[in-house]
């Protein structure tokens, strides 16, 4: 599969979005230089890769993988510093409470600046032939973020901002440059949210979805006759049924994604006491096989 330059990883909270983003960045970096842009305030994807970035500085994880933290706030600060070049004043202004309300009255400005930053990073990535993996916000906020440029075009029908919004739109809707990866788990709510998000992203925003990834899928250990034989075992039977049910649920929903024109695959449940480098490697191997080697 030819992957877009930028992979925007989102999903319902609790579906392992940051884990998938980290594993994906790690896997891609074996093929080509890769940057993980962490948009999550807690930087959990970066932490999984062993990096603690701050202030949009690039941190090198390996020779071919680096991590950058992006926040709407730092983008706003950079924007303000361009407009008010006297640093002492711009700093004080950014700290002042009243200024907070002014920015609150400019809806979407921070998000818009963040998208513009992603567009610039993608352009740089294209020049260096590197991948950009984004650990994006959870799906609700991610859709809001991606909608901002069309919102800006609505309120600014002409002028520089409109042109800027146009170029962001062009970037987001170009499937060679930008694609969404949506994570879910074998649970009704997560599946429904993934379908909704994919629908909104494609139909309303015109953005390509690379894959909907079913995370945390246990292998089915037991066949039907075994499940019947263990019924007197109470708690053990319950646990076995739970495992098989999650596996079946994952298999059941796959056709719904295929029907919706979305490619989908599963990542195994990591039955381990912690998610560490070893688990990321394992997940990365599946991601590489499903996304790169097909």
């Amino acid at each position, binding site marked *: 599969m030819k992957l877009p330059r930028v992979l925007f990883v989102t999903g319902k*909270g*609790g*579906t392992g979005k*940051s884990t998938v983003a980290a594993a994906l960045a790690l896997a891609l970096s074996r093929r080509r230089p890769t940057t993980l842009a962490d948009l999550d*305030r*807690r930087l*959990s994807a970066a932490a999984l890769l062993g990096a603690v970035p701050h202030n949009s500085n690039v941190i090198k994880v390996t020779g071919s993988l680096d991590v950058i933290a992006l926040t709407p706030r730092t983008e706003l600060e950079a924007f303000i510093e361009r*407009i*008010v070049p006297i640093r002492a*004043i*711009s700093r*004080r*202004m950014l700290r*002042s*409470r*009243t*200024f907070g*309300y*002014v920015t*609150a*009255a*400019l*809806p*979407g400005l921070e998000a818009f600046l963040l998208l513009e930053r992603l567009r610039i990073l993608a352009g740089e990535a294209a020049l260096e032939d590197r991948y950009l993996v984004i650990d994006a916000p*959870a799906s*609700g906020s991610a859709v*809001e973020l991606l909608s901002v440029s069309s*919102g800006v075009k609505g*309120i*600014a029908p*002409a*002028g*520089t*901002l*409109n042109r800027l919004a146009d170029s962001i739109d062009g970037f987001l809707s170009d499937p060679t440059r930008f694609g969404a990866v949506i994570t879910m788990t074998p*649970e*009704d*709510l997560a599946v*429904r949210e993934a379908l909704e998000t994919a629908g909104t992203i494609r139909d309303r925003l015109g953005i390509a979805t690379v894959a909907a990834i079913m995370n945390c899928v*246990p292998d089915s*250990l*037991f066949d039907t006759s*075994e499940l019947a*034989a*263990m019924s*007197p*075992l*109470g*708690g*053990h039977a*319950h*646990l*076995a049924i*739970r*495992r098989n*049910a999650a596996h079946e649920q994952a298999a059941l929903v796959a056709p719904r994604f295929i029907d919706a024109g979305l490619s989908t695959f599963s990542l195994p449940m990591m*039955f*381990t*006491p*912690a998610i560490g480098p070893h688990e990321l490697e394992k997940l990365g191997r599946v991601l590489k096989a499903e996304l790169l080697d097909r």
Partner: protein
Amino acid sequence: MSRKHSAKAAPFDLRAQKLVICLGPGGVGKTTISAALAVHAAVIGCAVDVMTVDPAPRLLDALGLAPDSSEPVGVEFEFALDGIEAPRRTDATRARLRALRLDPKRTFDSIVARYAKSDSARDTILENRIYRNLSGALAGVADYMAMEKLLELAANPDTDLIVLDTPPATEAIDFLDAPRRLLELLNSRAINLLTAPNGIFKSQLRMVDVAARAVLTAFDRVTGLKLLRDVQAFVRSFDGMYEGFSTRAARARDKLRASDTAIVIVTTAESSRIAQAREFIDALESAGLRVSAMVVNRVLADLPDAAELASAHIAPSLRKKLKRNLADYAALKTREEVSLSALRDSLPAGAVMMVAHDLGREPRTIADLAEIGRSLRAS
């Protein structure tokens, strides 16, 4: 900050509360826990209202809510469930449950309508671009509107308890701080400054204000948005409504700090959510707000005994698989325990930690919610 393991704290008693506010990160089942607490309170004899923010369709069904039920709707269910303690009041018929779904935009519109001086003043606000963006998009407005609706519900003397679900927040304080922030927006020096015509009062302005204005002006010039004009029109249109907003914000603030208000933080046992929950606790503590309980949702139930497998009459191959299955879930349980003990260590003094076990399915009925509510116990 002194913190200690509060295993000895009294169990969290819903009957002693008038208001329970559930806060927490997105995706932890906050709405489910809010509904479960409300159902449980009704079962033990309280007259309860539960306000949800973004319920899943199944939960709407369970509560009998239409997607646009922005006024309380009575929820029919069998109150006589097993294991119920004595009702709060001698009048057992008092117990009831009503549910509603918050519609921030509609609530904001109705407040504007209530406080606007005239119909034309109202329409000016409702059509203002800044207002439309504020009321539709800004998360803080949903927060503020939840507070507004809460005050409205709290005014009903026939209600014993209100359970409030809140919008998912990255920071706990966002929600609790919403009334103050909106007020300050309407009354801030920056806004006064922005509404002053060019050239006037310049001498009174601080450098910072001049810079803030410069940014907006520059932004307007670059973008052609005329935002400055819109902000001015927006603030001017609220002229005279400030009193009403201010009174209600003060009442909301008092309500949050009342002794019969309980703040409950909902989380799951995943380490990233726990880290977020701990940030919530810190933020609330530094704002002088007391956390009454932490609810950890979807915790794995206790694992079965491995010894049962040794003595069971099953095929050796099945025994082997069951052993592996048990070991797999034990590993997950270990992962969970690490997070839970980290959370236990950061519990504020006086707060209880409760766990809700994973039902193994999505809650679909009132009975499911009652089961979760009843099973909540100190951990």
